[in-house]
């Protein structure tokens, strides 16, 4: 958590908690979005496109573009820039539509 705006706004968040990303244990602050938590951990990509398999992460960051989709607790197509991390969330890289495995 080397770069956060917490100091700028004199925030005093409650204690961080953990979640997993493809099995790695990461931490998030209460209310932090998944995209922010992944970025803070240095992770820039968590989806591959359904056509060419190209990596994707945050593009617009405000819930419009649907580029930052991730699979959270087994549910695909969650916008990482909008979803707040919950303690114990299991986040996985989303491949393609995210529904392919459930066909």
């Amino acid at each position: 958590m080397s770069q956060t705006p917490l100091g700028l706004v004199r925030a005093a968040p409650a204690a961080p908690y953990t979640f997993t990303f493809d099995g790695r244990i990461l931490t998030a602050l209460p209310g932090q979005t998944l995209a922010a938590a992944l970025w803070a951990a240095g992770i820039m990509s968590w989806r591959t496109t359904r056509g060419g398999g190209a990596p994707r992460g945050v593009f617009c960051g405000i819930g419009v573009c649907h580029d930052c989709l991730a699979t959270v607790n087994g549910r695909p197509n969650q916008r990482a820039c909008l979803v707040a991390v919950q303690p114990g969330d299991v986040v996985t890289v989303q491949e393609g539509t995210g529904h392919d495995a459930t066909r």
Partner: protein
Amino acid sequence: MSAPSLDAVIVGAGVVGAACAYYATRAGLSVAVVDRGPVAGGTTGAGEGNLLVSDKEPGPELELALLSTRLWRELAAALPPEDAVEYEPKGGLVLAPDETALTALRAFAAGQCAAGVEAREVDEHELAHLEPELTKGLAGGFHYPQDAQVQPARAAAALLRAARSRGALVRLGEEVTAVLTGPHGAVRGVRTPRGELHAPAVVNATGTWGGRLAALAGTRLPVLPRRGFVLVTEPLPPGLIRHKVYAADYIADVASDSAALQSSAVVEGTPAGPVLIGATRERVGFDRTLSTEALRRLAGQATALFPRLADVHAIRTYCGFRPYLPDHLPAIGPDPRVPGLHHACGHEGAGIGLAPATGLLVTAALTGDEPPVGAWPFRPERFDSRGPADDFSDPFDRPDGPPPSPGART
């Protein structure tokens, strides 16, 4: 600015204007296409790209649709592959939830078959084979192999590009501010903020705004907007939904004159992955306000047909305005009240499907050739016998803004 001499100015760069330009240039005519916005910026861009015969009763519109079905198949093969219009001859599946609906659907389909439509009854067992995710317990349905789909914005762009390669002038972001007429009242071109374009013919392909262009030309065409919402899901694996699937009550909605909100979900997959769920119908003028009630109904009906969709996210929605005329038929052909003015608008929710046949009809009128189908039912002056105020009696149905004052004409 002097432009080369033109045979026709086509106003509107939606799919109908693009199809008019395509067939006119193929016939050797020199045309300009002018639009105040971008390609497919109006109703074309808000459609699903339905090429349907299944929802049409026997009559002139079905005849136009059957011709267009053949033409789209030709176009899909003739347009360059880099202009892929996502033509999918996927077929339609019309569902009857109960025996009463099935009996009505049988009678409807029998009439269609007599008029040249291919339709085949399928029982519950075969329904499950054709659409594995479909809900169980339906009485039956009909399969319409001629129903197809294109991506409408790509289709309009591809037709325009082909027309341009044959010399068509395409001027976007340029609003027609006046229809120019000569001393005897005949059309001689249009004026835009960039100058004048001169031609002995002007084609009104302005869709839902067709009444306005008619007013600019000093005549009247009662085109009114009928709003529709489409719901778009997250991308799903290909093959989940294979046909255009809808319940039989959609047909009644299409033909209805009611102003109230109507919805009957038409569900279909797309090559890109999202499933499209359309469409509502309501007469609220040009109001773009999001209607959660409309979306709730669409979602409810779609999940009733495909229970699997209940777990799927809807990621966005869009709305548009179908251009409808009081008798639900388009206005196609020369306007005897204003020599040189041609209309190609008012296709309601069927404009993508009917565009090629419309382009051929307009081209035949421009060249003086025999039309491919009878154009009489589509004659633009057919509403003249009604009182002048009749069609605009509902204040919510007025075209946006008052008609331009006669002083604006030249």
